[in-house]
């Protein structure tokens, strides 16, 4: 089954605006993680939210989790040109061995 499907696939905003990316998943999870990938580079862990948490903050990042709707959102506030990257959510179910199951990602472009 597929996990971690993001929308939108691409998002273009101006510097200073907020960017919201959404993610849906299909089976029960233990946690959901968001990663960032600059073009052609490795994945950088941004934030982890556990299944018993509803919201989590880290700097300009805010993540929500709604397990009843099997969805999560990542909000980046006051975006900067340096935030331009692809953002992926990855769902983790311990009964699936703890592996990360990634979605296709949202390509965020922040224009100066």
């Amino acid at each position: 089954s597929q996990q971690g499907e993001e929308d939108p696939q691409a998002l273009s905003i101006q510097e200073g605006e907020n960017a919201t990316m959404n993610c849906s998943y299909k089976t029960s999870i233990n946690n959901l993680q968001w990663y960032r990938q600059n073009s052609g580079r490795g994945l950088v862990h941004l934030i982890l939210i556990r299944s018993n948490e509803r919201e989590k903050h880290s700097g300009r990042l805010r993540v929500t989790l709604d397990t009843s709707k099997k969805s999560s959102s990542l909000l980046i506030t006051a975006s900067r040109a340096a935030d331009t990257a692809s953002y992926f959510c990855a769902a983790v179910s311990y009964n699936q061995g703890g592996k990360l199951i990634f979605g296709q990602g949202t390509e965020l472009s922040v224009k100066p």
Partner: protein
Amino acid sequence: EPEVTQTPSHQVTQMGQEVILRCVPISNHLYFYWYRQILGQKVEFLVSFYNNEISEKSEIFDDQFSVERPDGSNFTLKIRSTKLEDSAMYFCASSPEYEQFFGPGTRLTVL
């Protein structure tokens, strides 16, 4: 800050050749993973490794693939006979428990 390292950064090989991709996980981590990302596609799980054995593998991880932790630091992925469709970025990750920390990747090009 400790980080996962991978070598080489780029490997070019001929179809049918064997390749070994190397990773040095973060030293006190217990769980190790390989993922791959074909150009323009999503990151896919290949295999997880814990306590010196494979804990899970995906359908992609067939008999052509193997992993090894030959000493206390290295974690390798071997592809015995490469195919054109093995061309991808290969990422190693390690984890102390929940969060996974990724290396910069090895770009494998099979000609």
